[in-house]
């Protein structure tokens, strides 16, 4: 094959505009890309002086280049502009080389022009794109953390700052394992080493639910997805951290509710089925009792049997109250009045004889079911009285806080043991040797049926403090 034809084909097929001209600037050759770039056909361009594509504000450029070419120099990657036939300005990068004859004399120049107009707009595009990506990363609710192959944190977005409580400046350059509780904290370096060595993916590209650790040491559930990338030859890992706290809490709540519903159904069935035989036994033993000699040992045993049956019935009643709390029938009521009645009920029980109860404060009427509130307050008072073993003081304070009526019950008892604090409202959990563990669970359900809330604290100074909030009428 003719080498010249090969060369010619290459020139014709090049994406760059290739022009040959003599030292006067007269165009000798004009390839297809030059036609496309400048808009002139080869027939229009060949034979003319190249000056027609040079902008008028660059009168000396051609002279300078020609001088350097004549001296045998090469001009490389010279960025300038050219004007196309339709007046369009084209950004070009020129490489101009001398053309020599057989004796080595420079007789002309070849110019290879690369259109960099596109590249400039591409730079702007990249800047825009980077800006967009940056704003996405900055605005993301999820935490985004970039680490290198040794686990060192290189980037930490505002979402991560919010989730973990660290500022980006605090964690830059530290090992990512500070964001993990044990055992991951100690094992993470090993995980990374193993992945780098074996390529075995445990989390990368998969994502999983794990536990993260905040700056203050508390932990929270997250979904972590990790992507891997290579940046200038270095391996980097990007972790996206989605906080699952509210989802986990909601799931927990739903599970609890479902369990309560099932428990409620079961308890209701049992309670009702127990009541009928209780009625049978109680009635029969009572009739038998009336036939025993008054004052006889047997008669007093029957009296005791009836008392036990009544205790059993109270337990069943509590179970039903918890399992199937009645719908409140709210009317405007005076909380202090209800509290007064409740305190009288407590005083009527001799076992709380040495408990002093004070009620003070004031609040507007609330919309509530007085009978159910009595159950709530009586349960709280009895709890306190029993915690103090029948000896001490209970003070009840009523006040208004915004749209709520707040009732605070404090006692001088031993407070709440740390081991039960998290399970106070769990049914059937009790600290008493006898008791169903339904009191506070029922109280909570009844308060929630009134759209209120309850919290229990065990202050430093001892005793327990129960805060009930009920919406005002």
């Amino acid at each position, binding site marked *: 094959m003719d080498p010249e034809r090969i060369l010619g084909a290459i020139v014709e097929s090049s994406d760059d505009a290739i022009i040959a001209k003599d030292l006067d600037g007269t165009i000798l050759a004009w390839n297809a890309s030059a036609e496309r770039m400048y808009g002139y056909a080869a027939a229009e361009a060949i034979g003319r002086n190249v000056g027609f594509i040079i902008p008028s504000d660059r009168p000396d450029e051609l002279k300078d280049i020609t001088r350097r070419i004549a001296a045998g120099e090469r001009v490389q990657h010279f960025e300038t502009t050219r004007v196309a036939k339709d007046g369009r300005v084209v950004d070009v990068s020129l490489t101009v080389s001398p053309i020599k004859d057989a004796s080595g004399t420079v007789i002309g120049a070849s110019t290879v022009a690369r259109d960099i107009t596109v590249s400039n707009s591409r730079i702007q595009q990249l800047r825009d794109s980077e800006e967009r990506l940056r704003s996405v990363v900055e605005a993301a609710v999820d935490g985004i953390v970039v680490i290198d192959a040794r686990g060192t944190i290189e980037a930490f977005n505002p979402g991560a700052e919010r989730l973990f409580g660290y500022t980006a400046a605090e964690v830059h350059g530290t090992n990512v394992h500070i964001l993990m509780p044990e055992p991951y904290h100690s094992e993470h370096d090993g995980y990374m080493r193993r992945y780098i060595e074996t390529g075995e993916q445990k989390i990368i590209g998969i994502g999983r639910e794990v536990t993260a650790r905040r700056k203050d040491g508390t932990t929270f559930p997250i979904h972590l997805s990790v992507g891997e990338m290579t940046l200038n030859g270095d391996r980097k890992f990007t972790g996206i951290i989605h906080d699952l706290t509210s989802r986990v809490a909601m799931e927990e709540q739903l599970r609890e509710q479902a369990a309560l519903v099932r428990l409620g159904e079961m308890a209701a069935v049992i309670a009702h089925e127990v009541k009928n035989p209780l*009625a049978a036994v109680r*009635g029969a033993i009572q009739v038998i009792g*009336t036939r025993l000699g008054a004052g006889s040992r047997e008669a007093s045993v029957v009296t005791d049997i009836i008392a036990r049956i009544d205790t059993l019935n109270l337990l069943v009643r509590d179970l039903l109250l918890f399992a199937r709390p009645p719908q409140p029938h709210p009317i405007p009521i005076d909380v202090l009045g209800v509290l007064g009645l409740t305190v009288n009920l407590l005083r009527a029980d001799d076992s709380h004889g040495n408990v002093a109860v004070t009620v003070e404060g004031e609040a507007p009427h609330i919309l509530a079911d007085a009978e159910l509130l009595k159950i709530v307050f009586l349960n709280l008072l009895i709890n306190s009285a029993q915690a103090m073993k029948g000896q001490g003081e209970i003070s009840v304070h009523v006040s208004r806080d915004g749209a709520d009526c707040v009732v605070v019950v404090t006692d001088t008892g031993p407070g709440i043991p740390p081991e039960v604090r998290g399970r106070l409202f769990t049914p059937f959990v009790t600290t008493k040797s006898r008791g169903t563990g339904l009191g506070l669970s029922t109280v909570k359900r009844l308060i929630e049926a009134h759209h209120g809330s309850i919290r229990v604290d065990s202050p430093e100074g001892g005793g327990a403090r129960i805060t009930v909030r009920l919406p005002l009428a």
Partner: protein
Amino acid sequence: MEMSPPAVKKSPSPRVLVVDDEALIRWSLSESLSEAGYAVIEAGDGASALAQLSNGHVFDAIVLDYRLPDSNDLRLLERIRALQPAAAVVMMTAYGTPEMTSGALKLGAYRVVPKPFDVHDMVDVVGQARESARGF
């Protein structure tokens, strides 16, 4: 031995129908009401209760369980009231709800007594129900 005061025994004993599928409840109510001077007839389900009420006997009071093998709603009460409107009805139940109670009272029951109960209290309630039915 404690007992409610016996009814004055001039006129024939007032008649009470006790309806419950639990034999021990029928027995204890029957014993207590008899001691109080009532003539007690027992029924173990709704059908036999209705049979008793339909065979010409007039009852002064009826003590009726809410849930029976053949009855689990207030229709039985409604039929009883229609058959013997003059009889005082006391209902008893282990399954009481506020809706059921108010429904029973609307249909003319004197009271709904939750199970378990004190048999002597029940005898008192039956007495009050009769007084109420006679318009004092």
